[in-house]
């Protein structure tokens, strides 16, 4: 029997000393022991269960990773690499561009750590029962702080490499804080890869604050690796005229749950949330987004696509909240989904909550199979049925890929998705 709400192995792993300031860590520890992990009863977890984690008996790693390299080379121009192997930060690189300061979380001062672990990472985030973030606060020993100075335009992409699974059955709870000063601009890329074959679980949190007129582009690339389990949360707090552009591409992993909380809190601020998820095999790929328009004259644009194959499952839930005083808002959301096999499943749920009256808001969710009319059209051009299907599926993904801001990455991802689609075995007589 559990002594607490947490599985015993997890409860036992709670550290004596965490990276969070003592008071915050202790409160988190107490709270998470009481509430435990989320279950299916929780509305936010209706479609995704954490059984694989509950039963996983993961342990926290101790000092690993010096020799672990990612197998994939992203086509990036002189990236600044921040490597985590099973959650262990591998150190600050030497050659930092001007205006960029990087600090290992363990070496950060108390105020910085308090900011990284603030129980209220964005003004609209009031979710004290969020077990996974709280667990991260209680557990985190490692992480990194990225500070971009005001007016700094950082051309080099800052790449966080999450290399998971180097040792068997490890779990990690890293925390990242990224702060952009006024009118700064930076690109953060999460390169997620599984380096081992045994299950590993990463429960990471990224807290970002984007000052007035600054722009953060945040690209998450979840690459192949079937054993990975991850639960991740991103907070973005936007001041006046700030921009947060998120691109979330999920191709691999066994169970991936990503959550975004974007607080559009200053007049003129804008956010884009763009996503592509391609669950196949027995993968579960899940994204939950929450955009809060808390200031007037703010805009958001959300576009997610899921292609589910085999017995893969895709989950998308997108919530847009427009507060009472936030007038003249434009918020658009679309979720388009393609199901390629009878065993695949996609759950898509838009949620709008609007308290202001001068708002232009739309949302739409579609779930379907390939367009028969388009298939016929391609075949009348001499393109064989299987190939025509492949073209349409790739084309469906391409529309989201085309929104990526880095051309070389766009081409690379196009090829990657094509390879994935070529590997699938299409039943000749299926309509899918």
């Amino acid at each position, binding site marked *: 029997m559990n002594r607490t709400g947490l599985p015993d192995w997890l409860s036992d792993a709670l550290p004596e000393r965490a990276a969070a300031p003592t008071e915050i860590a202790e409160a988190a520890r107490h709270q998470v022991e009481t509430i435990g992990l989320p279950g299916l009863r929780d509305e936010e977890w209706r479609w995704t269960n954490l059984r694989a984690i509950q039963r996983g008996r993961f342990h926290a790693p101790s000092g690993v990773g010096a020799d672990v390299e990612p197998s994939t080379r992203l086509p990036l121009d002189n990236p600044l690499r921040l490597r985590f192997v099973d959650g262990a930060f591998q150190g600050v690189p030497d050659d930092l561009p001007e205006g960029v300061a990087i600090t290992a979380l363990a070496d950060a001062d108390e105020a910085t750590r308090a900011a990284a672990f603030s129980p209220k990472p964005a003004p609209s985030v009031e979710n004290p029962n969020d077990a996974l973030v709280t667990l991260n606060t209680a557990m985190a020993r490692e992480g990194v702080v990225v500070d971009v100075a005001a007016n700094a335009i950082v051309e080099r992409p800052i790449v966080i490499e999450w290399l998971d699974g180097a040792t068997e059955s490890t779990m990690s709870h890293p925390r990242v804080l990224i702060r952009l000063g006024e009118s700064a601009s930076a690109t953060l890329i999460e390169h997620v890869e599984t380096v081992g074959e045994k299950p590993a679980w990463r429960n990471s949190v990224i807290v970002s604050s984007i000052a007035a007129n600054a722009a953060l582009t945040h690209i998450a690339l979840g690459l192949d690796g079937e054993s990975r389990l991850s639960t991740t949360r991103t907070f973005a707090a936007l001041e006046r005229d700030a921009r947060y552009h998120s691109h979330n591409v999920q191709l691999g992993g066994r169970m991936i749950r990503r959550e975004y909380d974007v607080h559009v809190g200053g007049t003129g601020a804008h956010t884009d949330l763009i996503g592509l998820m391609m669950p196949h095999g027995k993968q579960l790929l899940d994204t939950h987004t929450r955009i809060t328009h808390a200031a007037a004259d703010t805009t958001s644009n959300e576009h997610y696509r899921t292609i589910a194959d085999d017995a893969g499952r895709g989950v998308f839930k997108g919530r847009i909240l427009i507060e009472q005083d936030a007038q003249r808002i434009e918020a658009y959301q679309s979720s388009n989904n393609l199901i390629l096999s009878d065993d695949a499943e996609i759950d898509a749920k838009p949620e709008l909550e609007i308290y202001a009256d001068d708002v232009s808001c739309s949302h739409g969710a579609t779930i379907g199979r390939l*367009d028969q009319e388009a298939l*016929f059209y391609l075949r009348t051009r001499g393109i064989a049925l299987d190939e025509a299907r492949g073209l349409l599926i790739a084309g469906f993904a*391409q529309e989201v890929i085309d929104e990526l801001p880095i051309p070389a990455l766009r081409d690379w991802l196009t090829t990657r998705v094509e390879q994935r689609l070529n590997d699938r075995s299409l039943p000749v007589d299926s309509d899918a």
Partner: protein
Amino acid sequence: MALLEIKNLHAEIDGSEILKGIDLTVNAGEVHAIMGPNGSGKSTLCHVLGGRDGYEVTQGTITFDGHDLLEMETEERAIAGMLLGFQHPVEIPGVKNIYLLKEALNAKREAQGLEEIDTFTFMKQVRELVASMDMDDAFLHRGVNAGFSGGEKKRNEILQMLLLEPKLALLDETDSGLDIDALKVVSDGINRMRGEARGIILVTHYQRLLNYVEPDMVHVLYKGKIIKSGDKTLAHRLEAEGYQEILQEAS
């Protein structure tokens, strides 16, 4: 040997008979116009020739260039040289025009035992055709017909034909809804396709197209049958007298 020979073709959709015994022979080098009022079966005939699912041929035969057409899949028909121009070309965002053109051309070349076309030759050829259709190169990198105007879609259909050089071009209401500038460009494209080795079938609702593309034969389709055939003067009579006169004459 005729390029296309349709004999006593009956076809139905969802159990209701639309084509009720069509006979039509098209030889290489000829341009045939098939005219008829709404609901006469024009589009059904095009879909049956294209091999679209949902249309059941209950009687009759179609021979195309010596092949039993009804035994062939849609893509096999295209590769054998029959190309269908759509009344409503389908929008396929995400699949670039240039990609479709290349795939289609290479599918045909593969069937002919030829190697894939090299990119340089291909691009040169495509750019010339794009210019000849009064289109912009940028169109090549847009999604197939995605966000195109009606006129652009029809130009795109003709562009594909000019590149793929079919033995038989079957154009389903390619002229419908075109303004006069687009009609001239489209007609000019069709006229450039005319040749000794090629048959062209223009399925149309309006006589106007035939002022720009002069047919060798005109057929009137009514209630699933060709009720009258003649030379181009038949089209002029239709224009002047309307369908009613011709229908009475035929019955």
